């Protein structure tokens, strides 16, 4: 049954002109400014490796690529929030606190991307969790507080495992008689190689896997992504995910060459497990927000496999990672609009989106195509390159398992989402078309997603290649 709409159609009455809260303008201004600065630095600045502030800050291709990525998503999310509050007066309540937390989250996340010290990066990731946890909670929804707790608890356990891992790595250096240092540019992984380093690396991979939502520590993710407000889910899925991923990438850049076998085995195993678990969950879920969340776990599994393979898969992996961030942002923001219109998250209660909400239906359709890895999106090219590397690196069983899981995911996702989009419309209400400000962020993210699959400007392509090279890619 289609439930009572949470928001009335805009066409039912004129929207009164009103002054928006200052916090909202601050949010929008900060998003535009930081995106502008990062884009200009990436476009015109040479991406040379360098450290600043006593060695604690590192500016290199990895930092620049991911800063550009998270600030592009942040700009999209900030415009979305601005347009939502403009349309729904009730959302102004508590906006000051919300904006402060979002800005703190983005500041700390950006600092974590620039960190050159493993433990400082860890501290910043933990602080970003402190900022994100209250954003999940909505005062009127009792389910959001336990979801926020679960997110915080799993994050804390994951981060504790990472810290324990670094303690083991330090012990490895001490056992080898080497003065330990956790500044990335000063670590000599070969000097501290041994059992302690291997144990440490395993714990670090497990810990970061928890933050990325990889099985077996993934259970917090569907609940959190489902219960959090859509804008917060987009920030968690596209910003915090990538900050944690960069933490893992920084570890692999230094330690993978010395521990290639361990890293490859562990990452490919958890990647496959995550894909299997998420595929089963996609088959049985009836909630579209949860379906997108399970698809995120599926993508995280593919990313783990790409990282485990390294070498020729890294360029494809990066394309996949960047596309994944844009897909998640588009889909979660669209899911928010659909939820606001229908007041339900059940797929069986929604049908005929393309007729009732043409813009949202279109974004859900295109986002689903990208999610499923269809051309011309970057996710298609990225997936293709990772699968090719599985064959080239002689992993025929993993290749077979991955393609089988992808096929089941494809069928299950399409079977669940397509009736929502193309089914018969149940309502004849004339809903006002959303303003340009509402659709602009999603159009921008969509264009970026298509560009990743068709044409990358030389500056960005160089950046991708430099990051791929730092992970052992060509």
């Amino acid at each position, binding site marked *: 049954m289609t*439930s*009572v709409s949470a928001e009335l159609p805009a066409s039912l009455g004129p929207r009164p002109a009103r002054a928006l809260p200052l916090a909202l303008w601050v949010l929008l201004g900060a998003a535009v400014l930081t995106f502008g600065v990062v884009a200009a630095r990436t476009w015109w600045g040479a991406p040379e490796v360098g450290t600043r502030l006593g060695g604690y800050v590192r500016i290199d291709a990895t930092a620049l690529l991911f800063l550009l990525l998270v600030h592009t998503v942040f700009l999209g999310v900030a415009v979305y929030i601005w347009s939502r509050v403009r349309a729904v007066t009730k959302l102004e309540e508590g906006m000051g606190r*919300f904006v402060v937390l979002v800005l703190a989250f983005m500041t700390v996340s950006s600092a974590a991307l620039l960190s050159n010290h493993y433990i*400082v990066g860890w*501290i910043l990731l933990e602080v970003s969790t402190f900022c994100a946890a209250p954003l999940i909670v909505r005062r009127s929804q009792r389910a959001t507080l336990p979801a926020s707790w679960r997110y915080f608890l799993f994050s804390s356990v994951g981060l504790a495992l990472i810290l324990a891992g670094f*303690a083991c790595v330090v012990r490895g250096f001490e056992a080898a008689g080497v003065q330990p*240092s956790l500044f990335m540019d000063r670590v000599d992984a070969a000097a501290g190689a041994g059992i302690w380093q291997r144990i440490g690396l395993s714990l670090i991979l497990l810990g970061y896997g928890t933050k990325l939502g990889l099985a077996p520590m993934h259970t917090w993710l569907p609940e959190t992504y489902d219960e959090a407000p859509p804008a917060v889910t987009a920030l968690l899925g596209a910003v915090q995910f990538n900050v944690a991923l960069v933490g893992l990438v920084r570890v692999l850049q230094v330690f993978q060459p010395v521990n290639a076998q361990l890293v490859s085995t562990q990452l490919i195993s958890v990647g496959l497990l995550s894909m299997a678990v998420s595929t089963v969950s996609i088959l049985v879920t009836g909630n579209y927000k949860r379906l997108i969340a399970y698809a995120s776990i599926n993508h995280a599994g593919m990313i783990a496999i790409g990282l485990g393979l390294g070498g020729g898969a890294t360029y494809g992996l990066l394309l996949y990672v960047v596309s994944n961030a844009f897909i998640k942002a588009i889909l979660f923001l669209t899911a*928010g609009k659909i939820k606001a219109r229908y007041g339900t998250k059940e797929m069986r209660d929604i049908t005929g989106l393309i007729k009732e909400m043409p813009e949202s239906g279109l974004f859900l359709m295109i986002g689903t195509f990208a999610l499923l890895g269809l051309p011309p999106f970057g996710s298609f090219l990225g997936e293709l390159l990772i699968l090719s590397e599985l064959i080239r690196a002689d992993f025929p069983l993993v290749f077979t398992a991955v393609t089988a899981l992808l096929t089941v995911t494809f069928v299950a996702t399409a079977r669940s989402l397509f009736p929502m989009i193309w089914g018969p419309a149940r309502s004849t209400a004339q809903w006002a078309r959303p303003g340009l400000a509402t659709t602009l962020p999603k159009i921008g993210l969509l264009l970026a997603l298509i560009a990743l699959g068709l044409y990358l400007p030389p500056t960005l392509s160089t950046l991708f290649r430099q990051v791929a090279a730092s992970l052992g890619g060509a």
Partner: protein
Amino acid sequence: MTALLFTLLLVQVFPLVVMGWRAMLLALSLQGLLMGWMVVQRGPVEIDAALPLLDLLIVRGAVVPMMFQRVMRERTTGGRQDVRAPNLFSLLVLVLVIAAAFRFAAALDPVSGESQVRLAVAASGVLLGLFLLATQGGVFAQAVGVLYIENAIALFEFDRVEGAMPLPVELGLLAVFMISASVYAAYVERLSTFVATLPADPLDEGPTV
């Protein structure tokens, strides 16, 4: 020092047998105090050891347990859901966990002595923390589980080479630990009082960003 380490192991285990929130807080406090006492026993306390001493004796030994005690006393819901009582199977798992921790320590540090026992007690702290997280559904007991792991990491880092971690980083770690513990306490408080007062109808949630 080895006697202190075995005392620490007993302190880790007894609340998991007794299973009460007061016993758990007492265990957390004693873990901090015992580790602090080990720092004092190591020799004259110099300026480098002041920060770990502050962390262990004051923060872990007093501030964090007292913070939780205040919350647990003031909570409005009944205490029966705070911790789940042990059964024979969970006690058996407990014994196996400790045996596994000692086997792990013996494999990694073959020379018997204080260092091996410390490693075993630290490993058992991590495993017991994970055991609590796996077997307890209550927010309080889960928070204690994470604090067990944090304390075990502190014990593991006990004889870390001085200078391995710069002072600002050490201060950052201490600050993060304190904020984490405060957030755990806030969740314990809010989840026991706030949720019960909210309406259950999901359609009443209103608009969101």
